[in-house]
């Protein structure tokens, strides 16, 4: 007699439970390696049905269906997943975004130009996935660890690519990150995110610290011997590029590295 009631109640309660999870069956495709990391960190990994081949962190991201690589994801593969939301990087994936919107698919654009933009993206994706708590605590965690250390600013040059020389301008979040850690980007006046520069400018602006984010050797370059960073052996290599170049949770680790450099 007892069981006759309990079983339907159990079934009903399960049904209600199912309904009370608001985003059940919500399907997300992330074309941004950084946002993939963010979604994992805020506890939304179950919604991810497709990622790019560049999304290699955390390890379980590698097992998710690949829709293509960063620059050329396949629209067909994305459509076949019937996603409710596709996360795109602007400007690199503007073409994909336009195509997807033509098919009526909702997109979420990410193009952080400052640290605040990164936080905004995290909060917004948390709201969409109904993972506000996760997003809030991630932002809290990042804010607690990435903060202005109030150190004396030292002139810093960051090299992303050697031939041609590419550095970081004002519109890259890295510019802000460097400043918080105690550096002053010598190309912070250029109104671009990743400008190609002339080596004469580097020599003239004479940085105290050089951070190299590519594998080529930079000591022994002709005319660079006078730069104080090279004279005083303040050239830093072998940093984990993904920690700095991906505006996601691991930026905290990148910031810790920078903290050590500017000590």
């Amino acid at each position, binding site marked *: 007699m007892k069981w006759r009631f309990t079983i339907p109640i159990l079934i009903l309660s399960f049904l209600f439970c199912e309904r009370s999870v608001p985003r059940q069956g919500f399907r997300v495709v992330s074309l941004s390696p950084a946002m993939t990391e963010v979604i994992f960190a805020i506890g939304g990994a179950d919604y991810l049905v497709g990622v790019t*081949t*560049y999304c290699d962190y955390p390890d379980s991201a590698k097992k998710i269906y690949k829709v293509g*690589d*960063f*620059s*050329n994801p396949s629209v067909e593969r994305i459509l076949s997943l019937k996603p409710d939301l596709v996360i795109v990087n602007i400007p*690199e994936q503007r073409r994909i975004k336009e195509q997807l919107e033509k098919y009526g698919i909702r997109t979420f654009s990410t193009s952080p130009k400052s640290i605040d933009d990164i936080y905004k993206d995290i909060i917004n994706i948390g709201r969409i996935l109904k993972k506000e708590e996760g997003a809030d605590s991630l932002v809290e965690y990042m804010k607690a660890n990435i903060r202005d250390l109030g150190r004396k600013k030292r002139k810093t040059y960051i090299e*992303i*690519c*050697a*031939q*041609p*020389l*590419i550095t970081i301008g004002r519109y890259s979040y890295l510019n802000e990150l460097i400043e918080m850690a105690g550096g002053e980007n010598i190309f912070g006046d*250029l109104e*671009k995110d990743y*400008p*190609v*520069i*002339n*080596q*004469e*400018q580097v*020599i*003239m602006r004479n940085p105290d610290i050089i951070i190299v984010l*590519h*594998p*080529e*050797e*930079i000591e*022994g*370059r*002709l*005319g*660079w*011997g*006078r730069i104080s960073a090279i004279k005083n052996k303040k050239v830093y290599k072998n940093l984990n590029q993904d920690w700095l170049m991906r505006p996601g949770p691991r930026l905290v680790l990148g910031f810790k590295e920078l903290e050590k450099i500017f000590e």
Partner: protein
Amino acid sequence: MGLRNWRKYLNKVVLLVLILIAGILFELFTGPGEFTGEIMQLRILRVSLGIFAGGVLAFSGGILQGLFGNPLVEPYTLGSASGAALGASIGIVLLGYANPAFSFLGSLMVGFLVLTIARIESGLLRDRLILTGVVMSFLCSSLVMLIMIGGKRELYEIIYLLMGYLGIVFTPERRFIFLLISILSLFIMLYLYRFHREFDIISTGVETATSLGIDIQMFSIKVFILTTLLVSFIVSLVGAIGFVGLVIPHSSRMLFGPRHIKNLVGSFFLGSAFVLLADAMARNLVVYELPTGIITSLIGVPFFIYLYRFK
């Protein structure tokens, strides 16, 4: 040659020298840096690089147009540029950066492949070299795309390599390579220049050349190998600066006539001056550095139309 013709000729030579000097001065004394020792040292290197690259490209273009009797041939038609790009992209994948040795090997290997494939069939080798070169260029370009697809930073390196860029950073390795290949190129060019009579004859027609005792098959192979070497040198260091090898030889022929003894020298110096001027603009037009190859085409086309129209 009468006195009036001589004077006309002299005028053109003076004009050429003036353009070259203007190019050198423009390149040396404009730019973001101050005039300190280090920066002038870098600029002098950049000037020599420009003279070298522009001169060799225009010279090779002149030679190839003479050999093939085809006005559309340029040094890159024979596959060297795309071969270099392919080598560089393989280098980027393996090492993480563009290494000149890889571009050089890629360029050389594609040149060798073009020659081997062109020799499979019998007939006039000269004509088949062009077709094979063009086909191989397409193959290499698709392979580059295949390798580079998905790259972010790597794409920049390949674009600057494909467009040509003089603002390279001189590591000890690159300085040594530059010294070595400029000496080698000088010898190769002097050797090729000795055949100016043969080029004159071949450009009047293959039949004439054969009847005058030139072994056109062997001659084509020799010239092809040497120009491929020259172009590989350039491309491995500064990338494929476009337009110079195509249009400068034409301009030089318009100025100095069809005889190769004159127009090859004209090509060399006109090419140098042209690349220097283009590079000076590429550095100074905007705050950022532009690839030199973009400017060569931008200012090259109006220059060519002017010559064509008002010669």
